[in-house]
């Protein structure tokens, strides 16, 4: 099996960190680069955090590109946990590596054009605001032709919102970019809150991360302690969602998810800016059609995640055995 070429477009971000670690531990994916866009935290911090994460994964050669510092036109909104900023050095060690020169939007455009030319297809996993992907799609018609699929964490239907009553954060943070991507004609698979809230990371998962997934697992577990956990009223049971990890898991194992086609739209202004809406019963031929994840096999998802991340633990064990 040849690995699927993928660009991770993220705003790390705790769950983005998990998404990057999962992708880098999965032979099904050939990660061309990590693009870091402003979102959960300002772009200087997402770039830093992306660099720290690829270093933590033991793959400092993965290019990290700096993305947009702000949304296309909306006022900037940062994440609920923006105060985290750059991951603390005592949890995720600092690194000397620098971002690759150039900018994320131009990099995505260039790689997609090359993929289109070579008849190769590139997937994009978007776990932050869609600013850089929208910019890339605007630049050249060949960009859309080179992108096989964009798997996006974003949106909310019956789950309403998280950052605002009617809006999920990634969509709220750049609703115009989302509108632009949805209208581009590129195949979109969306992982909204409705599905991300179906799989909760619980204490026993954190224990496995700490025990058997090496330094990367320990750091990820420690970072998840900071994030949106223990909201029993909202989630109905203990634990917290792993939002951004889902689109990566989908690119590795699509059968974990139940998808439904729908005409997808987003509100770009006013008090409901960032609100996504979907018509699951639209007549055939209506556009834009996206696939929307409506259900996930929670048990298999966590088995995949923890199974793959255990590679970090095994690698450390092997290294210490070689040394001793």
């Amino acid at each position, binding site marked *: 099996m040849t690995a699927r070429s993928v660009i991770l477009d993220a705003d790390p971000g705790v769950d983005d960190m998990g998404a990057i670690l999962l992708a880098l531990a999965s032979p099904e994916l050939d990660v061309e680069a990590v693009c870091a866009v402003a979102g959960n935290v300002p772009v200087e911090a997402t770039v830093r955090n992306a660099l720290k994460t690829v270093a933590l994964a033991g793959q400092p050669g993965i290019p990290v590109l700096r993305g947009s510092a702000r949304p296309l036109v909306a006022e900037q909104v940062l994440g609920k946990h923006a105060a985290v900023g750059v991951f603390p050095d005592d949890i995720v060690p600092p690194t000397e590596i620098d971002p690759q020169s150039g900018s994320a939007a131009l990099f995505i455009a260039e790689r997609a054009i090359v993929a289109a030319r070579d008849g190769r297809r590139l997937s994009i996993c978007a776990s932050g605001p869609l600013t850089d992907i929208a910019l890339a799609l605007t630049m*050249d018609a060949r960009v859309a032709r080179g992108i096989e699929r964009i798997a996006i964490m974003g949106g909310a239907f019956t789950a309403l919102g998280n950052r605002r009553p009617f809006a999920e954060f990634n969509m709220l943070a750049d609703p115009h970019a989302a509108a632009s991507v949805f209208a581009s004609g590129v195949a979109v698979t969306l992982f909204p809150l409705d599905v991300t809230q179906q799989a909760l990371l619980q204490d026993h998962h954190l224990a496995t991360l700490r025990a058997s997934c090496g330094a990367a697992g320990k750091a990820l577990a420690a970072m998840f302690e900071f994030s949106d956990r223990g909201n029993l009223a909202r989630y109905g049971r203990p634990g917290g969602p792993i939002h951004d990890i889902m689109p990566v898991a989908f690119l590795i194992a699509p059968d974990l998810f139940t998808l439904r086609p729908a005409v997808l739209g987003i509100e770009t202004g*006013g008090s409901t800016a960032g609100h996504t809406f979907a018509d699951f019963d639209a007549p055939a031929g209506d556009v834009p059609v996206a696939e929307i994840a409506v259900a996930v096999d929670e048990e298999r998802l966590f088995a995949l995640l923890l199974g793959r991340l255990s590679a970090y633990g095994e690698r450390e064990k092997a290294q210490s055995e070689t040394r001793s």
Partner: protein
Amino acid sequence: MSASPSAPLSSPGSRPIVIDCDPGVDDAIAILLALASPELDVRGITTVAGNVGVERTSRNALQIAELAGRPDIPVFAGCHRPLVVAPIGGQFHGESGLGPLMLPEPSRQIQPPHAVSFFIEILEDALARTRPITLCTLGPMTNIAVLLRVRPDLIPGIERILSMGGAYVEAGNRTMTSEFNILADPHAASIVFSSGIAITSLALDATHQAMATPERAAAVQQGLGGPVGAAVKTLLAHWDRNDPRRYGSRGGPMHDPLVIAALLRPELFETRKARVFVEHSSALCLGQTVADWYGKSGETPNVDIVTRVDADGFFALLGERLARYGLREAS
């Protein structure tokens, strides 16, 4: 003036500019005016989807540069669609974008880099030499908006943007409120007008004062010769809107060439400073440019809005400059 038809008419040491455009009948005349003017050092032409698709506007730009005897002017293709809204396309430029004008196949093809990458290159160089570049935007502002989001650190490399677009006191031309270039990509225009860059805005308020009436068109044509002369005659004949009720006379407004004229002869233009906002979310007023004439917004004025044009002075300049192509050929 040099006898060689390919000798540059502009000389080094003149003002470095890039023309970002969607030719376009009036864009074509603007490019010809710029390339006939030694005060301007045209460092490149960048194209964008607007009046017609970007493949067409790029091809048209190549053809016009060659028509002007300047196959050395680099042309870079830019964005193929607006940032967020769907493309609308122009109404007065025909299928080719140049009306009925037929030009020879261009000898060059469009090559990489992308227009945005070219801007990055030239602005990095401008910053290194502390010689900022002037940008002339004659179409939708998509390329500039992408640039500003991708590399906001290069803003100091831009001396000023002279832009054809918008309508302030004047009504719109594509919708009741909105002029075509702004309406075609209102989000891009909003990004550019809110960037803080110094802008000279040539809106319909200015361009509707520069009507190419049959008399003025005849006077311009009198001095013209050679292939450029023939082309300009065709373009001007096509441009007559024949709508005196709307414009006060026959002829068409010389939108884009005014941008070049404002660089060459600023004394022909009166301006007033204001902050400009672009409506990008209203159904009724999408693409409307709103000027803060009386400081209601509390924002620093950043746009010199052209309020009056010395039309006769402008047409005299246009005729004199375009006539240089014919003279050059004759000598």
